[in-house]
């Protein structure tokens, strides 16, 4: 009897030990909250499948969110007691959450993994994911490639005397295109030569092509109300009023349509110069395959600069908006944090991860070696121009209060477009208001 009992105890102990081992070896689920909707859902699922081949013990749930109320969803998710394991956020929000101590720095993970992020990524790209000396994410997609290029319609450009060998390079060239191509009637613009944009971000994009700057390199002093800034805004307003019939006309032209729809004006040959970011390649390929496949009909060129300013050059800006990263909320069990980083590392650095995800969209990767893949030249016929655009990008230093500054600048630009204030008045006032916010932030 006693022997039977001893045997039973031993057997039970062995079973419990095996069970405990299995508990620790159980699958871990990574809830990946992101906004890669549309045709990118399947692409991301493929990346997750590739990841699972290497890490079958980690289950990644692809939680794609609708774009509406994005900021609210992200903020409440991160601040909740059960946040997602990994969440896609733009740079400004990464900085904010890092500042509030809500997200995990991955610096130590990266060191332990042996990756040298400064060697692997473009400097501007990886530095966008650093705050206060700590790294919080790997970038995906590029923060650059947002404003440094435009897509053109060859047939429409020829009306202004330009062609693929001789493309518009300066502000003054753009004026010729707008004058020759833009057609409007009582209902508004029908064919658009070029649109300089009417927002604060458009203003900053053009500012850097006029040898201007938005903010000092230490992110402490705003500089957008410089003489170059005033000149840039005045040019934008004059361009819009002279060639596009005013700000209302040009805003109405873009209303109610998206570049993810087949009736987007560029796909229907109604825009000569379309200032857009590198996501346009994937959308063009999806929604107007005929145009994508006929490179005589369209092309890519660098953002025009002010030909009247000898110090001006073509530049894009990066990091002011988007500059997406993937942050890990702190409030999670250790095994989930580890698993989330493992997936993040795969997504951000692996050829079968982020590289593939961007490659199939024809857009560049923040990882240098990915862009050297010769297959890119086959996937995107204008790959050289895309690389040149990335090279031209200037990373703008931002702070967690950038959203407020962007809104103040946007309102100021609006006042100039509607004739409420002059460029100098509006920019000076906006700079003063924004500087106060910035000073209060740095004083904390």
């Amino acid at each position, binding site marked *: 009897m006693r022997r039977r009992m001893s045997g039973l105890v031993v057997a039970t102990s062995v079973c419990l030990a095996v069970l405990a081992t299995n508990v620790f070896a159980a699958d871990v689920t990574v809830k990946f909250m992101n906004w890669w909707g549309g045709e990118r859902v399947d692409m991301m699922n493929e990346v997750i499948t590739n990841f699972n081949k290497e890490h079958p013990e980690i289950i990644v749930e692809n939680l794609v969110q609708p774009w509406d109320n994005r900021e609210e969803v992200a*903020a409440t998710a991160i*601040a909740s007691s059960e946040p997602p394991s990994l969440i896609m956020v733009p740079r400004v929000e990464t900085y*904010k*959450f890092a500042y509030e101590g809500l997200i995990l720095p991955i610096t130590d993970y990266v060191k332990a993994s042996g990756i040298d992020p400064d060697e692997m990524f473009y400097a501007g790209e990886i530095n966008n994911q650093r705050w206060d000396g700590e790294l919080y994410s790997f970038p995906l997609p590029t923060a650059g490639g947002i404003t440094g290029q435009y897509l053109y319609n060859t047939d429409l450009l020829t009306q202004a005397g330009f062609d693929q060998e001789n493309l518009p390079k300066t502000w003054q060239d753009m004026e010729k295109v707008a004058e020759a191509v833009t057609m409007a009637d009582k209902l508004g613009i029908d064919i658009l030569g070029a649109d300089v944009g009417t927002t604060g971000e458009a203003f900053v994009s053009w500012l850097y092509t006029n040898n201007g700057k938005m903010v000092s390199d230490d992110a402490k002093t705003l500089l957008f109300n410089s003489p170059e800034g005033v000149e840039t805004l005045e040019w934008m307003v004059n361009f819009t009023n002279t060639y596009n019939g005013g700000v*209302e006309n040009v805003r*109405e032209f873009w*209303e*109610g349509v998206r570049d993810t729809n087949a009736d987007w004006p560029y796909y229907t040959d109604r825009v000569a110069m379309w200032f857009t970011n590198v996501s346009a390649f994937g959308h063009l390929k999806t929604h107007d395959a005929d145009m994508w496949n006929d490179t005589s009909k369209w092309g890519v060129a660098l953002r025009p600069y002010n030909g009247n300013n000898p110090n001006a050059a073509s530049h894009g800006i990066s990091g002011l908006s988007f500059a997406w990263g993937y942050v890990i909320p702190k409030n999670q069990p250790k095994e989930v944090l580890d698993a989330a980083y493992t997936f993040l590392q795969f997504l951000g650095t692996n050829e079968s991860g982020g590289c593939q995800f961007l490659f199939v969209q024809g857009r560049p990767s923040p990882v240098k070696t990915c862009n050297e893949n010769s297959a890119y030249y086959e996937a995107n016929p204008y790959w050289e121009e895309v690389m040149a655009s990335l090279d031209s990008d200037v990373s703008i230093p931002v702070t967690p209060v950038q959203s407020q500054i962007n809104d103040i600048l946007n309102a100021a630009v609006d006042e100039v477009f509607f004739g409420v204030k002059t460029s100098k008045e509006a920019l000076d006032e906006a700079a003063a208001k924004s500087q106060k916010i910035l000073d209060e932030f740095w004083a904390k």
Partner: protein
Amino acid sequence: MAQRIAALVGPGTSRPRRLPSKFNRRYWIGYLFIAPWLVSLLWFDIIPFIANLYLSLTDYSVGLKIPDWVGLQNYATLFTEDDIFFKSLYNTTYYLVFSVPFRLAAALGIALLINTKVRGRGFFRTVFYIPSVVPIVATAVIFAGIFHSRYGVLNHLLILVGLDPIRWLSNPQWIKPSIIIMSVWGFGAQMVIFLAGLQAISGELYEAADIDGASGVHKLFKITLPLITPSVFFNLIIGIIQGFQVFTQAYVMIGTNGGALQSGLFYVVYLYNNAFRYFKMGYASAMAFVLFLIILCFTVVVNYTSKHWIYYQD
């Protein structure tokens, strides 16, 4: 007192009976039935309200750490330094002043028509009610198309009658009217309330008026409208509350920056910006409390004046 006790105790009883308690079984059952509502009131209304009030007195940003106490600083900033606060309040009041009366008038007008004995009354009720159950986001997307300057049906109608097209969503003077027009479309819920009120009016009053030779107009102004005032009162209060909380239509059609010259930047949109784009949750909480006080004031005023213009059949 002694007599009462004696009556309760009864003759020849050695031990007095217990006095009846208010919390007898009947009361407990009643509280049990309303317990779910009480719990939800506490959890979804009272506790968040108190939490909001507390947070409005702090510099709470985002996250779970305890924020610093700033007292009335948020309120002081709101009223002395924030010009966008006043702009958003102006935009919202403008919207309220026009959308509420127009919506009430449309709802009452259609309710009066539907209340007549016409064929297909049920069909018309359904048709006019449907817009109020369509999600606001879908409605906003539809109206964005209607207001489009080139392809929108409104501008084509204007051209048909010889008027110039309007930049509905890009002209600062027309952004608020566009949102107001859109809001009037969803009058279905108010229409149903008015219908119920109309059907509660005693037919005898109309019969008596007919005997006295009253015309339709007389009956409308002397019987129908006075006796429908309780429904007007209810719809007015609800309309004011909803008007001050206008958000989704502006968010979808115009965006968080409020459109041209911020003319579509309504109060709750600005509150949203402070909360979720600037992460100034404490400041946004102060804005929410101010909104509560404003709505409360309006409600109290309307309620106070109601004794002068509301008539009940009894």
